[in-house]
């Protein structure tokens, strides 16, 4: 007599929507109004930056000593002009391109490099893990700003050098998270079950470990975006990143320093944008983290 079969599970309804993991995450994101708002703001900023050559009102390099430091709301220059008479709105839009690149690229690079190293170290364990982690600890021990400045200073000014410097600053942090999660996941029973299936280490990492590690690391990395933006701007402010006359928010903050008493609103604009973009990244990261919690 078959008493085992036909579990009448009226308790759990059969799934009707797409079950792929990322579809589920996207669906759950809809319940995060803050994240959606942040994403929208970021979208505007990115679009403004990308389409700057077409929609910017003026030439970012055209200076005019007669028109310097015009206040916000001046005719023709809605956001005022900087200390060399260049239109602020244009410079901010163009500046977004460089600032965003300098903020986003190092994080992506660190994400890929760091996850690979962390996965390897976590899975292998033992002495090799210890060696890798202790070497990275040396970098981790420095405050990130100091480290960024030091590496950037050693490499010399210029955008690509700052990108390298920032990547190097973030890699140890990402490795730390990736290694820690990998070590935890590795001990779970389903990894043992995968080993029992006779799969190679590569297959296990690819199918079982990676998926469960990417989540937390991705969340951590998106949190780094805001930090990266600020560090990048900081480097440019210190003269180690983008060089004048290129527009970049951090650099603009530097050059507008002298205007802070005569025209504080204009001087604060680049800072405001750095702030808004950074917060938007942060809130979006929080929202994604919530949505990625698969149990909701």
């Amino acid at each position, binding site marked *: 007599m078959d*008493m*085992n*079969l*036909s*579990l009448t*599970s009226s*308790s*759990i309804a*059969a*799934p009707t929507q797409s*079950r792929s*993991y990322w579809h589920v995450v996207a669906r759950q994101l809809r319940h995060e109004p803050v994240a959606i708002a942040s994403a929208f703001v970021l979208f505007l900023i990115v679009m403004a930056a990308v389409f700057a050559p077409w929609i910017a009102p003026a030439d970012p390099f055209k200076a005019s000593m007669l028109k310097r430091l015009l206040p916000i709301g001046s005719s023709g220059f809605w956001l005022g002009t900087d200390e060399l008479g260049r239109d602020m709105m244009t410079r901010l839009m163009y500046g977004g391109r460089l600032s965003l690149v300098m903020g986003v690229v190092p994080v992506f690079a660190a994400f890929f490099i760091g996850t690979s190293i962390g996965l390897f170290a976590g899975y292998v364990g033992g002495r090799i893990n210890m060696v890798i982690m202790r070497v990275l600890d040396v970098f981790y021990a420095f405050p990130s700003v100091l480290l960024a400045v030091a590496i950037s200073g050693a490499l010399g000014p210029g955008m690509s050098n700052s990108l390298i410097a920032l990547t190097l600053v973030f890699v140890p942090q990402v490795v730390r998270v990736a290694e820690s999660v990998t070590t935890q996941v590795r001990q*779970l*029973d*389903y990894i*043992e*079950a*995968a*080993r*029992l*299936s*006779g*799969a190679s280490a590569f*297959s296990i990492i690819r*199918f*079982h470990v990676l*998926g*469960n590690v990417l*989540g937390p690391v991705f969340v951590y990395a998106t949190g780094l975006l805001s930090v990266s933006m600020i560090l990048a701007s900081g480097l440019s402010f210190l003269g180690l990143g983008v060089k004048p006359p290129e527009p970049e928010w951090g650099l603009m903050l530097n050059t507008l320093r002298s205007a802070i008493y005569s025209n504080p609103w204009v001087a604060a604009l680049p800072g405001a944008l750095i702030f808004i973009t950074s917060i938007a990244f942060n809130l979006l990261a929080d929202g994604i983290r919530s949505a990625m919690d*698969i*149990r909701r």
Partner: protein
Amino acid sequence: MKTLATETLKTPMTTDFDPQDRGGPAQPLLVVNNLKKHFPVRGGFFAREKKFVHAVDGVSFAVAKGKTLGIVGESGCGKSTTARLIARLMAPDSGSMVFDGDGVAEYGGMALKEYRRNLQMVFQDSFASLNPRMTIVDTIAYGPQVHGMEAEKAMTEARELLSRVGLEPDQFASRYPHELSGGQRQRVNIARALAFHPRMVILDEAVAALDKSVQAQVLNLLQELKAENQLTYIFISHDLHVVHYISDEVMVMYLGQVVEQGPVEKIYSSAAHPYTRALLSAVPSMDPAHRTQHSPLSGDPPNPINPASGCRFCDRCEFTQDVCKSTTPSLKLVQGESEHVVACHMNDQHSGYTRQGAMR
């Protein structure tokens, strides 16, 4: 050490030649010889003496084809470590294993990957055993694909297996583990183990975490599957009732060693080792008119760190004598029996144990 009883179970009589069966019916499916595994205890940088946890200390047994060997014991006895050693999830410090006549992971023996197809395991924690980000049908299909099956065929078989363990594929296949109940997840784990068409399945406390009503369903399922697929089981549990129900032979472990082994009815009706007797009488009574009045043992099961010489049970045993403290007893046949062995000086006439005060 032991002869194979040829009694028949309620298995369907099969006269087909099973191409996987290399050794023939009389060859035990698995023979384990003197397995040892010691884990170092971190004593700190300045510790002078290195301490070891003697998790498994000289375990030997054989499992006959088509039978179920039950392993019982409490925390610290080493049954889970033994399971992992048999499954080769960790390498033993010493000892050997022979699977159907072939040495395992030895020169000239069976390769590890091939061994993995023959032996699978179901774990206690049904949730931790499943990748939370893979649908259950993907999880089941993963194993066969590792061994070369094409994806489509693996999926079809996975769905069939789901149906066989009582989970309707259309409803369950694309679910994630957290959307299933404990009993359903354990069925998935069983289906995953079966996807390899193994010959032996180790069930490490596989039903312990389930509700009693669900436990009975899963036990029934296990018995059906065993008969259908001519499986051999090693069933590890601390629940003596369940072990009695499902096993043909029982092995009792204490602190990393086997203290008694024999046919299930013999162990349950005339256990020879004081620990086994204590374990059997520690089961709560089901009759309110005859409640348990005395606890058979006092204190907790100890930790097997650097155990002293002699019988490991002697400080909790009520029959202990000097010889117990000095000499470790070895497994010997119980007097008058052919398949029942016990490691106790009381059983051994030449051990120096004086007969006065012996059990019986």
